[in-house]
């Protein structure tokens, strides 16, 4: 054993991970080989008292389409066996950077050489009269990070967000009981729940500010077609509505329960459950309290290393990747932020684990982490399908579509569009030099699947864009039409066409057996013998007519 690895075995690299969601769990899995070799220790702190589960499927779970087992995503037992220390149901109360340690709610102090924050995000709670909110002072967060997360923010009875398993249980109870569900916010999660609830027999209603649902992802055309499709699916869509306060009625036990949502224009929307679906915010408090720079998330450079401390890293929904500000640059906080999608988080987890492994083992540098392309957003519900990504608002009638930029850029932005609101179909493709910069696709699932592939790979679209639309056409699956074309194959085994049989019949081979002897048609699997007979009959009829 080399000197280096001997010393590593005696002083393994201490890695502490805060957060055991899907991204944290992925990081653990990828780091297991290093832990098994004994050259690193890994300690995981997770606030939820449960194994990591697949939060992406929480909406499916909440409407009863996925059970708890199918949310499981990682083998915590294998991690423990490999020697990973897990503290679940415990939260971190502070990062003590000067001591290279984190303190836990159960009093434990964990020291680290590298600290990875995968604290994720929490659902936003909008300001509504009737809901008590925790104040989050941007400049000066409260001293107790744990309290920030849960303490004092108990939502009234009949009001919930949808982020964890408990939330899902509340929603599921309402859906299965066929209750009236009011969804505040028309993002992808809100729309999915509303549509799924409606198809499960519950009454659902979506209340939102703007003109269209999913306005962060869709253009006006796509949004309108979605709204119309949702209405058709039985969801009440209430747009242009700013929610202001809640009305309650009193349960038998004396506790207030949600009764109605009141909007700025005085409209009252009654329901049994109010689901707040107003986006998520990164959990940044721990980092901020520790003096680390944060913006929309914990600020990290392209190596996922904190702007303020090279021993601290962040991945997943809590990480805001942005280039470190250099001297003389604007001190404004960078824009952008976590994508809220799982794929980029998993890529970060994989990459960081690989980087740690290489560094600890003294292996070479890893390739730079490629910044995630814009994430594809998909809304999937029975009969309503929406996929969108990137620039979706470009207008086909603005010259070069992106106006000013067209003058500077060699290739202009182009837009191709197909709108058929009557049938719930809409496609917009925004391209530069034939390559997608964004698209919206509503009600055309096969087209959406192909556009997604084209976008993900950065591939060139067929010059005739209409090729992409035909995938969802009824003619896409060819049928009997043309079965008697001269070129149509009758016998696959021997490659014999209608034309060849007709020709053979013309010289006197008018029975299936004769055709077989002359052309070998029907002498393979024999499955085409009936068709040979049909071809002969047809030929005989036409022959007699002429």
């Amino acid at each position, binding site marked *: 054993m080399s000197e280096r690895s001997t010393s590593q075995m005696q002083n393994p690299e201490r890695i502490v991970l805060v957060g055991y969601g899907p991204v944290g769990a992925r990081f653990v899995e990828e780091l297991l080989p290093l832990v098994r070799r004994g050259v690193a220790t890994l300690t995981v702190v997770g606030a939820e008292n449960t194994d990591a589960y697949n939060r992406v499927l929480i909406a499916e779970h909440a409407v009863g389409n996925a059970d708890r087992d*199918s949310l*499981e995503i990682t083998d915590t037992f294998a991690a423990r066996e490999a020697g990973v220390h897990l503290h679940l149901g415990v939260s971190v109360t502070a990062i003590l950077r000067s001591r290279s340690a984190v303190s836990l709610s159960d009093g434990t102090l964990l020291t680290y050489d590298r600290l990875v924050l995968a604290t994720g995000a929490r659902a936003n709670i909008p300001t509504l009269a009737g809901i008590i909110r925790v104040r989050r002072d941007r400049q000066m967060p409260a001293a107790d990070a744990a309290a920030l997360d849960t303490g004092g923010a108990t939502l009234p009875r009949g009001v919930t967000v949808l982020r964890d398993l408990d939330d899902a249980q509340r929603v599921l109870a309402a859906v299965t009981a066929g209750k009236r569900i009011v969804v505040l916010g028309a993002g992808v999660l809100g729309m999915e729940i509303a549509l799924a609830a409606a198809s499960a027999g519950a009454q659902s209603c979506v209340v939102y500010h703007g003109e269209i649902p999913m306005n962060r992802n869709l253009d006006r055309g796509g949004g309108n077609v979605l709204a119309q499709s949702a209405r058709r699916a039985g969801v009440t869509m209430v747009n242009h509505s700013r929610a202001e306060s809640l009305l309650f009625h009193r349960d038998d036990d004396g506790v207030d329960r949600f009764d109605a949502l009141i909007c700025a224009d005085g409209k009252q929307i009654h329901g049994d459950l109010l689901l707040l679906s107003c986006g998520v915010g990164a959990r940044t408090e721990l980092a901020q309290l520790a003096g680390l720079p944060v913006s929309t998330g914990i600020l990290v450079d392209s190596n996922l290393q904190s702007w303020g401390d090279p021993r601290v890293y962040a991945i997943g929904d809590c990480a805001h990747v942005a280039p470190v500000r250099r001297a003389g640059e604007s001190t404004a906080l960078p824009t952008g932020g976590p994508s809220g999608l799982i794929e980029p988080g998993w890529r970060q987890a994989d990459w960081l684990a690989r980087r740690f492994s290489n560094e600890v083992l003294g292996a070479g540098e890893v390739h730079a982490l490629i910044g995630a392309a814009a994430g594809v957003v998909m809304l999937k519900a029975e009969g309503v399908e929406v996929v969108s990504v990137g620039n979706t608002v470009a207008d086909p009638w603005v010259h070069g579509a992106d106006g000013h930029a067209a003058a500077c850029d060699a290739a202009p932005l182009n837009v191709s569009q197909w709108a058929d609101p009557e049938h719930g179909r809409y496609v917009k493709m925004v391209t530069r030099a034939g390559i997608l910069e964004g698209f919206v696709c509503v009600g055309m699932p096969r087209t959406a699947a192909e556009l997604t592939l084209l976008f*993900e790979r950065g591939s060139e679209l067929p010059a005739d864009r209409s090729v992409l639309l035909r995938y969802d056409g009824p003619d896409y699956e060819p049928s009997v039409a043309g079965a008697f074309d001269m070129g149509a194959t009758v016998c696959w085994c021997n490659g014999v066409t209608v034309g060849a049989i007709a020709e053979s019949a013309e010289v006197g081979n008018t029975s299936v057996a004769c055709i077989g002897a002359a052309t070998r048609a029907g002498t393979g699997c024999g499955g085409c013998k009936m068709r040979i007979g049909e071809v002969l009959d047809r030929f005989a009829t036409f022959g007699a007519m002429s």
Partner: protein
Amino acid sequence: MKLSLGETTPAEADAAASASPAAPAASLTVAGRAFPTNRGGLCKKGWTAAELLVSPDRILEPMVRQNDGTFAATSWSHALDLVAAKLRVTRAEYGADAVGVFGGGGLTNEKAYQLGKFTRVALGSSRIDYNGRFCMSSAAAAGNRAFGLDRGLPFRVDELDTADTILILGSNVAQTMPPFIGHLEGARAAGGLVVIDPRRTATARLTDDGAGMHVQPTPGSDLVLLLGLTHIVIVEKLVDRGYLANRTTGFDAVRRCVSRWWPTRVQEQTGVPVWQLRQLARRLAAGAARGAATGSGTYILTGRGVEQHADGTDTATAAINLSLVLGLVGTTHSGYGTLTGQGNGQGGREHGQKCDQLPGYRKINDPVARTHVAGVWGVDPDSLPGVGLPAVELLGALGEPGGIRCLLVHGSNIVVSAPNADQVRAALKTLDFLVVADFFFSDTAVLADVVLPVTQWAEEEGTMTSLEGRVIRRRLAVNAPEGVRSELWIWQELARRLDSAGTFSSQASEVFDELCRASKGGLADYSGLSYALLDTEEPVFWPYPVGSTGTPRLFLDRFAHPDGLARLVVVEARRLGAPAQVGGTLTLITGRLLEHYQSGTQTRRVRELSDAQPEARLQLHPATAEQFGISDEAWVEVSTDRGTVRCRAQVSTDIRFDTVFLPFHFSDDQRANLLTDDETDPVSGMPEFKKTTVRVRALVKAGAHV
């Protein structure tokens, strides 16, 4: 004289030949005969197979390369003396492993067995592998891993007839094995034939008119597709819980792993819409449930399209996992199988042609196996070499320092069939000595120092093992032309010249009896078989240990692992991502045409077949063709860093617009494998044949041929 055929491909065609020996070959005609697998049906290749016996191209004497590069005929004794001398010198100078052997999946069981023995005993070399590495290796590795045993179909092929649902992944049986499609009729009638292929092949068309569904994913995304289907089956509670508990192990880990592949994410990677994924998963499960009730269940069959990848073993494993989760395998109504690709693709992989294998599907590094086989061979177990190199590595060792200086090729045309084919051709030229046994001057034979003319299907005795593990007799129907010999005789003569230990019979029946003894106690146990039994025409399926009556359906009570349980093995899609398709960059897939077989050495010499398909044509979508100024029948150039193919275009809506297809049957600068990469699967050694990034351009602008 009439010769009746019970199988499909030329190499298989002899299976049920019945005739009195010594008829003149020129008078042969081919006729069908009732047989359960093909029911007397043949495709074009079978009907015309007799022409090859009398082809004017046949080599009728041993040929030796002259100093001026031409070949001259010589006597057998001179040719064999020359070969033996060269083998001796090479071994003395560079060691036994400097001699390599490359076999074929078209050889009879007897030849496959004898070739392995000849290499290990007479040559003392570990370096033998065969073209089945390019064919069945991924499915075999996955089957062994999951079930502890690999037999293409663990059930009889005619059991498919009553299936409710059949899922075929990456196989175009309607053209590669046409009589097989008769077994799909039941599922078609039930609306349950599902074909997964990036092309709308003849097989995919069998799903038309309500007979089922064609799923058209982008090439190379099959693994993700299968993980996604498994996910849906689990989430929608369509799994067979009782089966999983009683017959398998590893479900929990697989469940957690596939939970990463929810439907929308699968759609993103495959191009298959969510509704189709769900519909397919539900149909598979409904078929399985119906099977339990009525006996007409669900079968999942994989082909080379999903297996010939650098993650082919994992992809086949994912198909098996899906089958296990649905409770299909080892039941009387459902199953999983892989469609064997070559004439003797099954038997060829059981008896020692593989670099790590001894007869009976034994492992060469297993001391017990070595002792047993060495005992049958009459040699010291310690004299047997260890594990050799899988095909691509073996070819990579040609002419390299410490590598192979002298190569024997039997039943294979590697200059056409190996990936990165031009490198293989160049490497063959660096050898000290190349010996090729063939009927014709194949693209590989023309590079040889000595070409040994060998017997064809109707000219020899032997056995083959079909995809369902059925052992079939090959019988002599006509005498071989004067000057043509069987490989069994050649190896006997060479062994004698090399003063080899052990015995090398030239009689197929004696070799078979020895094979049966050598396979005794192995996974592919033939010990209860004999020509006498086979000649009774009783259907026989291995394992067939002494005293048994064979095994038509495997795994009914237990799998072949010591605990009797099947393994669900966690596999992950690690080869995601594909290059941007811009400016003519497209994904190439390769495959077969109805008219041709393998490298085309045989079928290109049959007039009727070569007239129908005389040259390679690149299939591409009209939208893609339009984009790059390519019209139907116009010349195109397809290239990678490894090579360039020039051929005509075949414009068709039967292919995805991001994909092009090239058949691999043609020679010279139309070899599809000039383009393919020799990167291999870490488990099976299978090359990446079915996802090659290529550049396509019109060769000339307006019509004229360059």
